[in-house]
C-alpha cells in the first residue's frame, strides 16, 4: 500500500471498523438532517417572501433544486467510489458505490417529478425535450442501469465491478447536465445559485434553499450509513466479526 495515505483511511476501509463508525454516526446525521429539513422547509414555505414573478408557485424550488444538486452530487460520489473499487478493489468502495445508486435514483426521480409539476403552471407544459430535462432523464436511466447491472450477476462482487464500470463512464453526463443550460438554448433557465459571483436570489429566499441543501446531504450520509452496514453484514456473512455481532444480538 502506498504510504502517503494516512493510516486512518486504511483503518476506516476495513468492514468491521466502518460498521461500528457508521453505526455511531448514523443517529447524529439523521437527527441533524431532520432538524435542517424542518428549518429549511419552515423558512422556505412560511418565512420566505413570494416571488415577484411566480408568486407562491416558486416555493417548489426548495425541494426541486436541492434534489437536483443531490442527483449530481451522489453520482459524483458513486463514480469516485467506483474508480477506487475498480483500481484498488476496496470492498468498502464497492459497497458505497452500489448503495449510493438507489438514493441517487430517488433524488433524480424527485427532481424530474417536481420539475414537471413546476413546469405545467409556469412554462405551460409538463415536459419538453430540451437539453437540461433530457440529460437529467439520462441520469435517471444511468442510475437504473447501474442498479440493474449490479443485481444481474450471481456473484455480488462481480456485479459490483461491472456496474462500477457503467457508473464511471456515466460520469461524463454530469457536466452535461450542469452546463446544458449554457451550451444550448433551453426552456429551462440558467443557474440561480453560483459559487463564483453573487447568486441571483434574494437572501431571504437563499438561506432556506441552502439549509435544504444541507438537509439532503445529511440525509444521504445517514441513509448511506445504514445501507452500507446492512450490505457489509450480508457480504461478510461468514467472518468472525459478523458472527460476534450475530451472537450478541441473539443473546439479548
Amino acid at each position, binding site marked *: 500500500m502506498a504510504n502517503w495515505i494516512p493510516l486512518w483511511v486504511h483503518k476506516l476501509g476495513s468492514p468491521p471498523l466502518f460498521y461500528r463508525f457508521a453505526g455511531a454516526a448514523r443517529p447524529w446525521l439523521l437527527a441533524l438532517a431532520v432538524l435542517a429539513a424542518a428549518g429549511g422547509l419552515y423558512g422556505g414555505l412560511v418565512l420566505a417572501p413570494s416571488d415577484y414573478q411566480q408568486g407562491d408557485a416558486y416555493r417548489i424550488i426548495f425541494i426541486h433544486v436541492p434534489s437536483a444538486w443531490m442527483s449530481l452530487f451522489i453520482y459524483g460520489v458513486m463514480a469516485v467510489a467506483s474508480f477506487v473499487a475498480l483500481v484498488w478493489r476496496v470492498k468498502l468502495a464497492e459497497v458505497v458505490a452500489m448503495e449510493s445508486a438507489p438514493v441517487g435514483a430517488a433524488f433524480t426521480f424527485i427532481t424530474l417529478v417536481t420539475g414537471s409539476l413546476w413546469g405545467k403552471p409556469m412554462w405551460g407544459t409538463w415536459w419538453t425535450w430540451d437539453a437540461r430535462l433530457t440529460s437529467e432523464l439520462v441520469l435517471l436511466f444511468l442510475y437504473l442501469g447501474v442498479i440493474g447491472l449490479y443485481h444481474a450477476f450471481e456473484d455480488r462482487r462481480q456485479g459490483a465491478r461491472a456496474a462500477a464500470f457503467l457508473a464511471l463512464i456515466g460520469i*461524463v453526463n454530469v457536466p452535461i447536465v450542469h452546463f446544458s443550460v449554457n451550451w*444550448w438554448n433551453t426552456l429551462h433557465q440558467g443557474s440561480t445559485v453560483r459559487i463564483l459571483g453573487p447568486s441571483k436570489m434574494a437572501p431571504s429566499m437563499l438561506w432556506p434553499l441552502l439549509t435544504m441543501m444541507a438537509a439532503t446531504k445529511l440525509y444521504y450520509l445517514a441513509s448511506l450509513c445504514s445501507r452500507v452496514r446492512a450490505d457489509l453484514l450480508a457480504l461478510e456473512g461468514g467472518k468472525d466479526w459478523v458472527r460476534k455481532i450475530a451472537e450478541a444480538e441473539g443473546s439479548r
Partner: protein
Amino acid sequence: MNPVRKRRLTIVVAILAAAAVAIGLTVFALQQNMNYLFTPSQVQSGAATSYKTFRLGGMVKSGSIQRASDSLKVTFTVIDAGGAMPVEYTGILPDLFRDNQSVIATGHMDNARFIATEVLAKHDETYMPKELKDAMAAAHQGRKIDEAGNGERGTGNP
C-alpha cells in the same frame, strides 16, 4: 503502487478518457443542430426555411397582445435584438405570459405570420420579493417598463 494495480489504473483511465472524448465530440456535433429554438431575426434571415414546424423564441413586444372578444384567439408580436414576428395562437396561455416575457412558441409559418400550436413561457433564474423588484424598478426610473419581468438572459442568446 504494485504492477497489477498500475495496469488496472491505466486501463480504467484509458476507458474513461475514451468515453469522455466520444461523448465530448457528440455534444460538440449536436451543438450545430440541437438548437431548441429560432429567434425572429434568424427566421427572417432564412435559417428555419428547411423546417415545416419549429420553435420560435423571443420576447413578447410590450403592448402587442390582442385578444379576440369571442374566442381564445390571441395575436402578439415576438421580438429579439434584430427582428420582430407576428404570432397567432388559439388556446390557453401559461400564467407567466405577459408583456416583455420570454416565450417559446411551436408552430409553422403562414406567409409572414407564425401560427403557433403551443406557447410556453420562459422565466429567468432571478428570484426576489415583489417589494425589492418595485424598489429596484423605481430606482431605474424610466427603464422600469422595459425591465419588468425579465432578466438579462433573454431567450435569444445561445
